[in-house]
């Protein structure tokens, strides 16, 4: 009986020694809105997310687990998604840039970015997290004051497999 216990003990010990730990690192992109943007109203005809204008730039974080699998495509708004009735034109300007990186080799992202229309593309060539801030400004008519009310706009953040 004692021998049987010893045999069983040895068998379990042997199994434990051969236990396997498996893992799978799969390519993945996670888009996380990090900071909500807020429009400041420095003058009556301007709404701007620039902190110097009393606004807050929206920040989006992109996490990629494998390098060179995705590109980030970020667009600043070109229209309000909600606003009071506007009877004059609104001119939009904006800029997208990295605000924080998890790896120093991502410092070249801004120099390599591709811009067209209101869209900015970044090739995510390094694994890790990148924070992108989007600055946008809306100018109303010719020196006209924006009517009172709530103004909302949408920043589009896309992570596209390449």
């Amino acid at each position, binding site marked *: 009986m004692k021998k049987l216990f010893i045999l069983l003990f040895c068998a379990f010990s042997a199994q434990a020694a051969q236990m396997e730990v498996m893992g799978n690192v799969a390519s993945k992109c*996670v888009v996380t809105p990090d900071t909500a943007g*807020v429009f400041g109203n420095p003058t009556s005809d301007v709404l701007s997310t620039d902190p110097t204008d009393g606004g807050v730039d929206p920040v989006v974080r992109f996490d990629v*687990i494998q390098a060179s699998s995705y590109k980030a495509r970020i667009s600043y708004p070109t229209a309000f998604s909600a606003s009071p009735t506007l009877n004059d034109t609104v001119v939009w300007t904006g800029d997208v840039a990295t605000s924080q990186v998890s790896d120093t080799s991502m410092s070249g992202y801004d120099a390599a970015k591709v811009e067209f229309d209101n869209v900015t593309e970044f090739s995510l060539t390094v694994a890790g997290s990148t924070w992108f801030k*989007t600055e946008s400004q809306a100018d109303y008519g010719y020196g006209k004051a924006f009517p009172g009310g709530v103004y909302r*706009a949408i920043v589009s953040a*896309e992570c*596209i*497999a390449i």
Partner: protein
Amino acid sequence: MHRYLILLLVMSGYASAHSFVPTYPELKPSYVEGILYTTMSLFNARKDVEYYEFGVFNAEWEKVPFAMQNKIMRFKHLEKKKIDIYIREKDKQEVVYICSKSKLIITGASKTSVSSRVCSKVK
């Protein structure tokens, strides 16, 4: 490095994120002849988003016909669902991207919201 990244991604998944995997899905034959399918998985950790819209596109970002249970689906906060996307075999060569896009609800004060879209590339 990978351990740190995995930890970061797991933690980030619980912040306020949108993920859509696999990155490179493969189209497989379905139980219906002439129809291919792939299974995607979406995880919604965005508190401000409850609905996601799905789309299939070619290399020029033109829409490619596809079928699924609902093209706009509801995902509760921190919910993960597997989704089967069906594509005609004759469209196989055209299909390049399968995307999920957050649908935003307009409420609250003057601010900018972020619409997130994650696109996978078909092998």
